[in-house]
């Protein structure tokens, strides 16, 4: 798909994620696209980025791709190896994490994320991963970036279970719960969204080249705010694509190549 454009959708999303990271920031990441986005940012415009894995790893420089945070491949050449209390406690809960990446089974229009279960928690349901550090990041990072596949069964009017709160029920409700921060971006394989400052409802920010507004909306179970003019998402540069393919994910494990 989109081979003629010289990049894949995964690469486009990773580059969009990287673009959200400013130099000098501290970012909490999970495995997969967030790792690719963070390493890409660090190798390009944000060399002073600090990359954290919740289990106690800071600024690794892996040369092999791993199957998850538990894979020592992704710890290689870290500057610090410590613990949950150190990373999630004295960095994240302390308020030092600028950005956290979050993924999920479902997200609603206020950016509430579900990674726990599908179905009715009081009836038949299927249980998945749960929170891990996701709820902690959603609660204490200064802002979060949500990465999710663009499908109607994932972009939901209401999620089955709020694992990681976004803006909860919109305007004022996150503050009422005692939480600052909140999601700043949602990056899907069709578009990028932010949240309208007043209502905290998801708002279309850009559409990926090769997609139409109709396709974007057709695969959502709620209506996002759609401004009059919606630009196309800035595509990856050839150098960004090369870095992902040759250096960051040469085995194609994260991108599923």
């Amino acid at each position, binding site marked *: 798909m989109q081979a003629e454009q010289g990049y894949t959708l995964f690469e486009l999303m990773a580059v969009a994620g990287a673009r959200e990271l400013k130099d000098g920031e501290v970012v909490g990441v999970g495995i997969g696209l967030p790792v690719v986005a963070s390493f890409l940012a660090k190798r390009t415009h944000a060399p002073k980025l600090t990359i954290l894995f919740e289990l106690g790893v800071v600024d690794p420089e892996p040369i092999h791709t791993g*199957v998850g945070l538990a894979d020592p*491949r992704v710890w290689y050449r870290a500057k610090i190896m410590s*613990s949950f209390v150190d990373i999630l*406690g004295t960095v994240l809960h302390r308020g030092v994490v600028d950005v956290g990446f979050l993924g999920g089974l479902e997200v609603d229009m206020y950016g509430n994320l579900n990674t726990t279960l599908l179905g009715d928690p009081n009836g038949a349901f299927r249980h*998945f991963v749960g929170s891990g550090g996701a709820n902690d990041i959603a609660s204490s990072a200064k802002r979060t970036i949500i990465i999710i596949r663009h499908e109607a069964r994932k972009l939901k009017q209401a999620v089955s279970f*709020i*694992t990681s709160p976004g803006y909860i029920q919109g305007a004022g409700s996150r503050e009422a719960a005692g939480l600052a921060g909140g999601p700043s971006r949602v990056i899907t394989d069709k578009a990028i969204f932010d949240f309208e400052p007043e209502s905290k409802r998801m708002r279309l920010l850009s559409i990926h080249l090769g997609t139409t507004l109709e396709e974007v909306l057709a695969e959502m179970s709620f209506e996002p705010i759609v401004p009059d003019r919606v630009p196309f998402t800035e595509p990856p540069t050839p150098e960004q694509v090369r870095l992902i393919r040759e250096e960051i994910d040469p085995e194609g494990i994260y991108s599923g190549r």
Partner: protein
Amino acid sequence: MSSKLATLAEAVASIPDGAHVALSGFAITRCNMAFARELIRQGKRDLTVSQCVGAMDADLLAGAGVISRIIYGGGSLDRFGRLNCVNRGIEEGTLVAEEYSSLSVAFRYLAGALGIPFIPIRSLRGSDILERLRKTAPGDIAFVDDPFSGEKWLVLKPLHPDVAVVQVQVADEEGNAWIFGPRWDNEEQVRASTRTIVITERLVSTEMIRRNPEWTRIPGFRVFHVVHLPFSAHPTSVYQAYDYDADCIKEYAQMTQTREGVQAYLDKYVYGVKDHWEYLERVGGLERLSKLTADPVLGY
């Protein structure tokens, strides 16, 4: 002088049915796999297990019906799949799950370790995790007014497991242990627990421990049993010692998709072997294990 060396069978026998056991695994690394297999063989029942991130050790115990309750922050086998047995237990109502986030469980261990009666946390607010905990663990969460700001804060009750079981790279016979790589919740688990069982890949002299006292992550005076058992985390990885065994974990993830598969897995790898050494033969013996041995620079 104060040797606590024990066999795996002896260490496992010291754990009574119904005990709360904190496990050191994280997804597919440093999991207490040999320990879990021996718990199953000894027919232990009704255990509670806790860990910040649910791992393969807890899942195997759930599959074998050894545990009736899990206190955790969610978990998986990383890219190999879900925690099939834990999830099935939750879905079918046979396993009580008190589900938190990684930091909430870490803070509960930390409070237990410090001997403080409660610890405030920002996490969980506004989430269904908190709503569900009001039903599953109402005695472990509460709200308190911060006396300094007047703000209302969620506070968590400390965890005090009966036993922490920690898989380490290096220990002496007193239980002083080194953990290489990230340590996730292990240091707090040990300090929160009443007693600790250390399962070590390598046994060293106390003289060696004294040469690098800054590396000692587990204090020997909190340890009751030291089990020296190479490859005891197989098929999960031990940083600086051996890689995870991808084929074995794939087989596990595949077989545990059904209850029948779980039984077949247990028959093959737990009940079908008399001890850890026979298990290692079953998975391919020295030839197989040599291939997993970690490169000293890479650590995997």
